[in-house]
């Protein structure tokens, strides 16, 4: 099979690159071993939440100084704002009516985590915006006995310690599934049903006090979250918001749905269940990749490749028991790894771990070292610690966006020549 561009990986970075390339007129195929980390992530767009452990109030004003101190960070190579604008527009024309991302690079919103910590994000979905801890309105956090992945009393107790009045309540949901446990995705599917929402409102209303906002685990539907939010806010006559918790993540799956729709509506193709296990090269050019699918291998030829397979968490970068790190799909060189014999980890859990910044070595245009036509995006890039910086979506969106632009520009230049 022949494409202009093959994108490897279907997380935020891969889908963003794929959609932007398709929008730019390229024939694109996105190949992925499985779902990306969208299904695990909270569903917010985090650009820069922490800088050296200190909370960032305004990513826009901190970023210039941040990249001067971290010249190897992906943010030193790309700009963030256009990608965020594009993403917000995707959401707007996407498959979830009325669902929006609000906020800006100028000011981080603080939302409660399931533990009750105040977590900074640049853009947040409308279903979460009501949880802004900058708002002094009291909060009633409601958990469900059936959802072991969310504990309302602990969440509320910690929120209260951060200065916003909060209390936790646990109610029975009556899912009638016959099971004692259900994860937040399973519950979110119930919330897509207006009949269920009506019964839920009746059940939860007596627990609520006047003037309280209602915080729920992130379960407000997958298909039509905005519809579920509006419906419940009307029934309960108060603002309501979602609090992200342990995977799977309904808000994260909405991000996946939205980006996938952007890719497909622009004519891009998505193949899940195709693990890229090798490449053919002609000198510094990769000419095709081999993808392992059920039954047999497929070869995909393309002029350009975007590697957006993620970092260590996805299995894209692996450290062997011989302590040698490898990039598994294309065998590209890595950078940011501790030198041979140097410590890979610090015995203190909260210390900066030397191996944390490992990634695929790239030049300033995100081109993989030793290649001419492989662009690298997302968590595969070196130099960042996205889970600690609170920068995951910002890096993936901006580098996926930039990789697509670079490919399109070079294609254009080649065509002109």
């Amino acid at each position, binding site marked *: 099979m022949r494409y202009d561009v093959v994108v490897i990986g279907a997380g935020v970075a891969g889908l963003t690159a794929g959609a932007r390339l398709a929008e730019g007129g390229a024939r694109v195929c996105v190949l992925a071993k499985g779902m990306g980390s969208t299904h695990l*992530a909270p569903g917010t767009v985090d650009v820069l939440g922490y800088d050296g452990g200190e909370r960032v109030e305004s990513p826009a004003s901190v970023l210039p100084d941040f990249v001067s101190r971290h010249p190897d960070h992906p943010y030193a190579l790309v700009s963030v704002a256009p990608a965020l604008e594009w993403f917000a527009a995707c959401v707007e024309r996407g498959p979830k009516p009325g669902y929006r991302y609000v906020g800006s690079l100028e000011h981080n919103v603080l939302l409660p*985590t399931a533990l009750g910590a*105040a977590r900074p994000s640049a853009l947040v979905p409308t279903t979460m915006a009501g949880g802004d801890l900058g708002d002094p309105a009291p909060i009633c956090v409601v958990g469900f006995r059936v959802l072991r992945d969310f504990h309302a009393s*602990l969440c509320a107790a910690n929120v209260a*310690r951060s200065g916003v009045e909060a209390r936790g309540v646990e109610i029975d949901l009556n899912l009638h599934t016959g099971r004692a446990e259900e994860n937040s995705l399973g519950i979110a599917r119930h919330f897509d049903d207006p009949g269920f929402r009506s019964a839920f409102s009746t059940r939860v209303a007596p627990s609520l006090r006047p003037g309280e906002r209602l915080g729920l685990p992130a379960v407000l539907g997958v298909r039509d979250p905005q519809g579920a939010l509006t419906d419940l806010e009307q029934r309960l006559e108060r603002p309501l918001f979602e609090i992200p918790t342990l995977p799977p993540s309904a808000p994260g799956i909405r991000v996946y749905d939205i980006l996938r729709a952007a890719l497909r509506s622009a004519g891009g193709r998505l193949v899940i269940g195709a693990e890229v296990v090798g490449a053919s090269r002609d000198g510094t050019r990769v000419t095709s990749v081999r993808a392992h699918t059920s039954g047999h291998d497929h070869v995909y030829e393309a002029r350009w490749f975007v590697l957006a397979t993620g970092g260590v968490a996805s299995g894209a970068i692996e450290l062997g028991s011989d302590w040698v790190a490898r990039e598994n799909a294309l065998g590209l060189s890595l950078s940011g790894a501790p030198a041979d014999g140097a410590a*890979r980890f610090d015995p203190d859990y909260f210390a900066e771990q030397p191996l944390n910044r490992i990634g695929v070595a790239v030049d300033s245009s995100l081109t993989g070292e030793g290649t001419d036509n492989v662009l690298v995006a997302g968590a595969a890039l070196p130099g960042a610690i996205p889970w600690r910086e609170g920068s995951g979506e910002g890096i993936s969106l901006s580098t996926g966006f930039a990789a697509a632009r670079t490919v399109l520009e070079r294609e254009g230049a080649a065509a002109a020549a």
Partner: protein
Amino acid sequence: MAAITTDVLVIGGGATGAGVAWDAALRGLDVVLSDRKDFSEGTSGRFHGLLHSGGRYAVKDPQAAVECIGENVILRRVAADNIEDTGGFFVTTPFDDPAYADRFVQGCRDTGIPCEEIDVAVALREEPRLNPEISRAFRVPDASMDIWKTVWALARGARDRGARLLTYHETVAIHRSGDEVTGARLRDARSGEEVDVEAAVTVSATGAWAGRIADMAGIEGVRVLPGKGIMIAMNHRLVNTVINRCQMPTDGDIIVPIRTVSVIGTTDVHVDDPDDRTIAQDQVDAMLEDGERLVPGFKRARALRVWSGVRPLFEDAKADDVSTRDVTRAHALLDHAERDGVSRFVTITGGKVTTFRLMAEETVDAVCRQLGRGGPCLTRTQALPGSEDGRFYHVSERLERKERHLQEDQLVCECELIPRARLEKAFEQRDTHNLDDIRRYLRLGMGPCQGGFCIYRATGILHQLDGMTAEEANHTLREFLEERWHGVWPILYGDQLRQARLDEWIFQGVLDVEHVQ
């Protein structure tokens, strides 16, 4: 200051100390069992889980072998619920001296260890992952033993007979009056409060720390050499039979299938400080290589956790070798009335987990001699709580229970199949707010995800149950994460590194545990 009076104060809540408490309580004595931390938090809780048949010592230390097989038979009878009857193999690999096997057979015969040579083909059929290059195989009655469960059964049994259990009570002074030890002062590590225990006899069952307690009592010359060994728990049961290399005991030559994992052990390095738990990278690498010799592909399997324990070893005056493995593994009972002219004080140290009951028996015999009362030892026949029906633990026990109650209860920990009701009961039974105590009690967070999913859940449940403050809940959560990290970072490669990264995304990314107020 609070003061309590008892017949026997036991300092040290490992297998031996808990065994002493159980034995003494069965003989009708009043007992206080104390530990500076949680019970079995020290050496006992840091071994590989092997209930020796004695085969390991059959050639090198026949007396230890005789003790092991004797205790193996007794413990199978009285502590069945804590033992999985895995059986054991001794196999001659291409790396072993082939001449050792005949000496091994003779040693087993001399020490009374049932040992049957089996066809290599039979051994490989039973354990298909075993190195196919083995030349001989012998079957012995090795087994695996859950030491945390055992120690808690001992402590609970003692408590049911009136014993008082004081975890997190560090001994800060031994009271001495002339030539008598009259008790000790303990400090509650959590509240800082001190309590004086007046005891007719004080027993130090502090293993590698026995020298320190003896020093406090003003007794000189009790010197215990801490020998540190590391062990690695591998995900899954790579083998279902204990596998020993048929050679003189050395590093990394045993794999013990226990609960949901397989543990490879061990090394032996002399250290000065019994609290030294550092793990050297080269030891980890060597251990993985050793595993490869027994089970090809071992290094590609997933390592879950590494830890070290310190054996208490008495220096043998005749051994001039620096290696502690040549120091006797036998236990030492020091009746200080006889040894030092200081009465009402007994030290028990050395030995191994397999022989803890025998050590306890001899200790309580000495206590009774000093007290001038107390009945005969009953621990050879009296089953521990939970083991009354004599049925061995089976690896699929929790799964079976879960299947029976599939609809009724939530699983808090999928890896170790711990239901919510069980966890809630454990908080109550153990009277603890410490998730690490619960880990030892229920194996919470000990599976492949190393707490990634269950620890937030457990913290939330704990907070809700006890009305504990959010501050305390955050503290125990963070402490657990830090404790887990100590045991995982030296073996983070392959899928376990990937898992650790997912856990970091959850705790640091989704929950933002680092920045909770």
